[in-house]
């Protein structure tokens, strides 16, 4: 795992790559769920992301990686720091890679939420909090491979924290709360079980990936994989320019994002689409809007159009449809049908 496979060298899987870019541009879109066949490079794409993201500035030494420019950092230590004229916290800062934290299967609760620091408790008799994976993932990505095999009590935990953006630890006489805002990325194989609806809802975008069926792209996948394994460094170097281009696209999109406007007509179309599909609550609409905006930013457009909306409709809505035993068609088909009906194609 020393060198991740370059993001831009992934063959095909356009929708998956786009969704990951959208989540990287605007974390408020919510997480990304990638469900699909075995061997389609689901985890490859997610792991490739880490190498791609521009670095972020943090308060040096802060276990939660607080942003020095934030008006209200979540962690107490950083909130106590003084602020200078530019709204910057006066502290040593550092540029670090955006965390992409793996939640390994078999992880126990204490490591995920954080717990009493056993080392210090045993050797010094001191009661100290040792942050867990959720703390490390703050401001970054939390990746759960085989998300449908995750133990239930961990799922409960994730559902709660992913919604509140804050991790509250009440255990072993400790009472700690710290920020845990992360983009939840899950992958799995639907044949191994369904996902709990509540957890499903926490993911902003959901994708279905399929193994390519055409020979040329299959050959290309195998060829690149082979080349990568023979010389990961050389291969990564060969794709560095492409990756750099993607990184610039994200940086530009992030800068553009605040000025992207959503016309009322587009908003209305988004609402109509959700109504047509009968998606519950506002989350679908909100995600659809945010995803479309992020996509516009990625495309360098300042106005969100129906075209953006159409492109993100399936990933933003397909996992929010109510199951209907009468309609046997897959959810992607239903979304596509609704899009066609609304925009008249």
């Amino acid at each position: 795992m020393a060198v991740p496979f370059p993001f831009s060298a992934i063959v095909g899987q356009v929708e998956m790559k786009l969704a990951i870019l959208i989540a990287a541009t605007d974390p408020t879109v919510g997480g990304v769920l990638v469900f699909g066949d075995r061997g389609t490079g689901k985890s490859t794409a997610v792991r490739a992301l880490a190498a791609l993201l521009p670095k972020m500035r943090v308060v040096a030494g802060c276990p939660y990686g607080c942003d020095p420019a934030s008006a209200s950092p979540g962690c107490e230590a950083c909130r106590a720091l003084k602020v200078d004229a530019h709204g910057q916290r006066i502290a040593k800062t550092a540029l670090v890679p955006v965390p992409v934290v793996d939640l390994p299967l078999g992880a126990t609760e204490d490591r995920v939420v954080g717990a009493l620091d056993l080392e210090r408790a045993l050797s010094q008799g001191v009661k100290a909090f040792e942050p867990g994976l959720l703390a490390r993932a703050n401001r970054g990505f939390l990746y759960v491979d085989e998300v449908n095999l995750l133990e239930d009590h961990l799922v409960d935990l994730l559902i709660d924290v992913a919604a509140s953006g804050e991790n509250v630890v009440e255990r072993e006489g400790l009472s700690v709360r710290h920020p845990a805002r992360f983009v939840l990325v899950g992958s799995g194989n639907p044949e191994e079980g369904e996902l709990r609806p509540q957890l499903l809802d926490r993911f902003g975008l959901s994708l279905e990936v399929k193994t390519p069926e055409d020979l040329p792209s299959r050959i290309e996948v195998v060829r690149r994989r082979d080349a990568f394994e023979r010389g990961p460094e050389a291969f990564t170097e060969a794709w560095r320019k492409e990756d750099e281009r993607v990184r610039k696209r994200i940086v530009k999109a992030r800068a553009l994002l605040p000025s992207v406007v959503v016309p009322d007509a587009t908003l209305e179309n988004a609402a109509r689409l959700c109504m047509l599909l009968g998606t519950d609550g506002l989350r679908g609409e909100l995600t659809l809007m945010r995803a479309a905006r992020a996509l516009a930013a990625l495309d360098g457009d300042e106005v969100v159009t129906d075209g953006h909306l159409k492109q993100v409709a399936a990933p933003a809505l397909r996992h929010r449809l109510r199951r209907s035993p009468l309609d046997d068609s897959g959810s992607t088909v239903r979304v596509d049908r609704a899009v066609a009906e609304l925009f008249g194609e």
Partner: protein
Amino acid sequence: MAAAPAAPEANADADADATPSTWAAAVAAATLMAIDPVGLGGVNLRALAGPVRDRWLELLAGLLPAGTPLRRVPLHINDERLLGGLDLAATLRTGRPVAQRGVLAEADGGVLLMAMAERLPAATSARLVAVLDAGEVLVARDGVSLQHPARLGVVALDEGATVEECVPPGLMDRLAFHLDLADVSWREVADAGFAVDAQAVAAARVGLARVRIDDDLLQALCGAALALGTGSLRASVLALRAAGAAAALDGRDAVNADDAALAARLVLGPRATRLPPGDAAPPESAAEPPPEPDSSDPPEPPSPDAGSDDADADPGVAEGNDNEQSESDAPDPTSHEPLDDVVLAAAKAAIPAGLLALLQGQASAARSAGAGGRAGQLQASRRRGRPAGARRGEPRNGARLNVIETLRAAAPWQRVRRGEITAAGQGDGNSAGRIQVRAEDFHVTRFKQRSETTTIFAIDASGSAALHRLAEAKGAVELLLADCYVRRDRVAVLAFRGKVAEVLLPPTRSLVRAKRSLAGLPGGGGTPLAAGIDAAAQLADAMRRRGDTPVIVFLTDGRANIARDGTPGRVLADAQAIEAARQMRAARFTVLLVDTSQQPQAGAQRLALEMGARYLPLPNADANALSRSVRVLAAGAATQG
């Protein structure tokens, strides 16, 4: 050097007999695996424990470099030993947390032998798969975070007896070779003199990094994989690596057609899910024996110019120059027919006989769902289930002490307690470094005790009402699966019609899988009711042995007309159905019999009575009513269990 590949090649000539070629393939797989265990992922070895399997393992062990860790992993290994965690003894001794490596980390650079892999829990398989993918173990448990290299090969010792009993697909996908030694006799293995040279293997291991593959061979492998319907691209990648290892074994730096053919035969053939397009035989009657996969006259590939070449029949001696004439042509992969065919024919020769019959459209024999060798599972107990955190409490009544949480609770008080002891003057020299644990520190692990429910739909797919019944049952299955995720219940479907009962959907909680398995069910024919009841009872029994609570739902009108042996005749069929029903009652399953006929039938009522089933006349058996009834029934069953 030539000695090494001699075994497979020599035996490939004797392809007419399936057995030696199976063993030769197994030898070839062991050889390639020994060259590149990490790259190839490993082997699924389907065979019962016995001298043949031992011989193969011995062979592999002999070919791996001396001192390679070969770790046998028991089926129910826990996370602590598998992944690693806190070394309690050392922690207690030293008074500071000491991490301990798990089996996965300890076996770094070696090979894991997974015992009874067909029973491998999905959770264990997923952990193993994550490690195979990443080449390292990531541990975040019990106060310890570790990252340790774990570059492994896996040999899954698969003792599955039926199609349903198999190694988790996610793991299968990552193992290059799927061998089935069930039909290999010991005599032949003992007689087969193979000369695999460990030195050649060692040399190949060094040479492997230099091996390159031509684009046309790469295309041929990918094309064969696609033609055989091996969806996952990992199959192609693994075939490529196998071909590379074969070339290295022969001391070459370039993969040739022989290598590709061997790789196709070993890696792609056993994974086939369909016959190459244009090659699918027209549907035949189920009674016809499956074609011999290794017969001297293999099914011809679809291309016009193929059959003339001997290489088709014997991939082992495929002409190496076959590829020269076709390479550097247009990039269009279809222009490589001769080469593609060599590879494809090799792969096809290795499609298992049973599978071939299946692929040709006939699932001939009823698949038995019962499984031998599970008697040990009867002690499904209250300590099973998923851990759901820990709580303060004493380890009584079989509750399991959670050592880590207990230690954690004790840890902060150590200084204070030691101080107390010293002050009271009770301390001797020895207790100074020890951890003081008191009753109030005890934590026990909580388990979710509720056992899972498996609902088995046994559907009478005979007669004219079959299609309607099947459609509604399918709807009910989907409704149940759609809303029962939270309860983690599972659903299975078996249908009986014609002469046999068949498991259409093995127990699953996957809606996707259910939809796929239940699409386009055939209906019509006679009613082998006794066989249906037997099959349902067998499946329910298997579920019970796993610790699940089975609930059986029959959809039938209760009118039997086919006896167990497949002979028609209402009288005997009815008598046998009643007999089967009584046996079912003796097993005390929760059963619902849904009478789907227009008028409630006396026969169905009697059958329900004999089974100890609840009787529910539901002429239109609509999916909603059905799923509601099942839910009520399952709730009752779960509280009983």
